[in-house]
């Protein structure tokens, strides 16, 4: 057995073990669990008190990040090849390069993510649980019973419970989940998922503080594939083996606490700290191993949102690959097929934003171009800086 295989095996096995015994790792426990909230409790001291686990996670992540940066700085200073630039690599105050302008697409994406987060956290309380039958496949924890809609992850992680539902419930779950997956696919990951929002926020903080990230190579992405399968098997199968995936899933740490609920955190709290640190250095790290996203990605050939490529316009400059949070390589190596929507593509539009060739990449919905790459978008911003 190769060394790499051994490491992958150990990583997968330990993940499975942690997931199985997740309830043993207590992060933040409440005496009694409260899964609903009311409008009058919003933004009261009680609500704020419920944010403590979330703040704790944030604090631990911040400490972890600072430690990681310090260790890396120390290693850089010790490395003779990089020592001359250790100070520059640690510098935080450099000017922002005025290369690119804000595009409407990105504004819309962020508005979607933030708006959906608010709706999922407080929507049920404000608007009433009108869409409770609909299941959206995103990681917005259904432990929050006051969400606007149901999320598919609960019954996917508890398939044994799904079987006990009346047939209308099963039908509603299956139809709404499949419907969303077939129409949107992983577009939901890029536009709606609250876990995605949290990770994108971490990335934005890193960009704003000019901390250098970790550039993952294709080998590293390959090495994560066994872990992704393990996560999928755990999500689907843990309920049958007597475990509970929710005690392991990091998403449970996010929306219930934000909504002001008392939901105990076990291993998931620690996992969330790890996910936040990882996504700080590597954008959307959790999305690369997300079991739900993996399932949704299967629809990449039928979904209506697509990334299309004009292969003749591409210069293989690799800007898209560098920008892609999911490390999709074929987006720049593809030379024949116009549809480059990958299993892993979350439709975040970063590739289109960074592509310097006119019309080489486009994000399309049912064949209609929503967001097209432009040379001007990449270089026009430099105009201003030149005339200062």
């Amino acid at each position, binding site marked *: 057995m190769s060394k790499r295989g051994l490491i992958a095996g150990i990583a997968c096995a330990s993940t499975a073990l942690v997931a199985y015994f997740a309830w043993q790792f207590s992060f933040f426990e409440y005496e009694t669990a409260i899964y609903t909230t009311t409008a009058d409790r919003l933004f009261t001291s009680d609500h704020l008190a419920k944010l403590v686990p979330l703040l704790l996670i944030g604090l631990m992540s911040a400490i972890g990040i600072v430690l990681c940066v310090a260790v890396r700085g120390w290693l850089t200073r010790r490395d003779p*090849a*990089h020592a*001359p*630039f250790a100070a*520059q*690599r640690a*510098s935080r*105050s*450099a*000017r*922002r*390069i*005025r*290369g690119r302008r804000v595009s409407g697409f990105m504004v819309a994406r962020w508005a979607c993510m933030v708006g959906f987060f608010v709706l999922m956290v407080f929507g049920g309380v404000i608007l009433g649980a009108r869409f409770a039958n609909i299941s959206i496949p995103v990681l917005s924890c259904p432990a929050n019973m006051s969400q606007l809609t149901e999320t598919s992850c609960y019954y996917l992680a508890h398939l044994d419970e799904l079987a006990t539902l009346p047939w209308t419930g099963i039908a509603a779950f299956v139809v709404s989940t499949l419907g969303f997956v077939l129409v949107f696919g992983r577009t939901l990951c890029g536009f709606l998922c609250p876990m995605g929002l949290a990770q994108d926020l971490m990335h934005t903080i890193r*960009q*704003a503080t*000019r*901390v*250098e*990230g970790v*550039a993952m*190579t*294709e*080998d590293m992405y390959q090495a994560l594939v066994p872990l992704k399968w393990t996560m999928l098997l755990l999500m689907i199968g843990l309920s049958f083996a007597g475990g509970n995936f929710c005690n392991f899933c990091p998403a449970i740490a996010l929306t219930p606490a934000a909504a002001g609920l008392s939901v105990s955190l076990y291993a998931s709290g620690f996992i969330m700290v790890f996910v936040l640190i990882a996504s700080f250095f590597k954008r959307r790290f959790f999305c690369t191993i997300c079991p739900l996203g993996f399932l949704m990605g299967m629809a990449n050939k039928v979904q209506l949102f697509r990334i299309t490529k004009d*292969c*003749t*316009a*591409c*210069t*293989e*400059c*690799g*800007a898209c690959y*560098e*920008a892609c949070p999911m490390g999709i390589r074929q987006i*720049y190596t593809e*030379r024949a097929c116009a549809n480059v929507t990958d299993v892993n593509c979350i439709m975040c539009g970063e590739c289109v934003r*960074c592509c*310097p060739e006119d019309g080489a990449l486009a994000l399309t919905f049912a064949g209609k171009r929503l967001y097209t790459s432009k*040379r*001007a978008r*990449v*270089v*026009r*911003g*430099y*105009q201003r*800086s*030149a005339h200062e």
Partner: protein
Amino acid sequence: MSRQAIAGTSPAAATSPSAVEARREQRRRQLFSSKSVHLTQKYLRRMRDLGGSAELMQPFFDAMERVYVRGQDVRKPRGTKTVGTYCVQVPQELVYAAGAQPVKLCSGHYTAFSVGDDVVARDACPLVKAIAGFKHMGTLPLYENCSLMVVPITCDCKKRIAGLLQDMCPVHALPVPANKGDEDVETFVAELYQLADVVSQHTGQAVTHESLARAFERTGYAQYELSRFLRIRRKTPNLLYGTHAMVAMNASSYLDVDAWAHAMRTLNDELERRAHAKQLVTRKDRPRVMLTGSPIVFPNIKVPLLVEESGGMVVADETCMGERGMSDPVVPVDTSFDGLMRALAIRALRPCPCPTFADNTQRLYRLRRMVRDHRVEGVIYHVLRGCLVYDYEYRMVEEELDRLGIPVIRLESDYTDEDVEQLRIRTEAFVEMIKLKKGPQRANRSMRG
């Protein structure tokens, strides 16, 4: 300046044998200088005689004149050091960030070539011979004032010239990976860190996050103007001669990036005005020719000149001293210092269709796209004698263009005026052939126009 220094030696020392030798050497240098000035002037004159929008090219011709005729160093702020670079794989941003001025030393000079012919291997390419010639004669401030030369190890000739130049000035050989995978990018990032260190040691000014970001903005603006230029030319053909366009892009080698961007901006504004006023260099439907292959460096611009003098129109070029040199922008994805260095490394490797990379099929796609975008009717594949890497790729390109139904000829040339007539015959025949291919009606119309 150096010529004056040579002329100012005292006559008292003119008796010993070594002094005689020195005087002979002096005369040789003077002869070399005057011959090379003469050659530059000849090609500048031929370009002006081409007419069209030649008057718009004045800032670019000036840059050439300054360096090759008046024998001055490039225009730069007082006290700025120059760093000589070759090829497109040396990031200019790094040099600017270290407070120096990069100049591209790839040469097209026939006079220097004839000197270099005796200095380097017989089968070496003329571009490298010309570099060796200039460095051997030591008369051109452009070469002599370089505080450092950065030679990327792209083709064999560049590798050898790196070794050869080492005897005459400080040289940093920059290894360029043969592939473009993730690991190769990582390797090249490490090389660029080393290069940044070497350059800043020579200039005494550190490459900082701030200065690198500023350099990105400066070159980014130049690239913006270049992209504008290319778009204008694509939209309105016959707005200016391709030879002029190639020299304008070539001039970026001898101009400060801000000065070049400013000149391009003025040119673009004027071209936009002329496009609006339908003020074209010709109303004829000339055969639309694209140039590709070995670098075409001023003053070795005989090939595009011949095409346009025989009634063709060079609508685009896929050569590294022309469009390709700067047109691919650097796309910084990450705002950190390391992120900027990565962006430079990626830009130097991935979009570059240089045949020194092991797998260069992407060049075919680029050619195919340019043929489509510029409605190219014929391709001239230029090969400098001894430029093996481009010669190897001719077959691949020919097969691809055959599939597209685009005629292509391989023009081999050397850095000499002797082959001009032979090249003229072939170019004229090629241009005529395209005219005939266009059909009799269209040919007639073009004659009337």
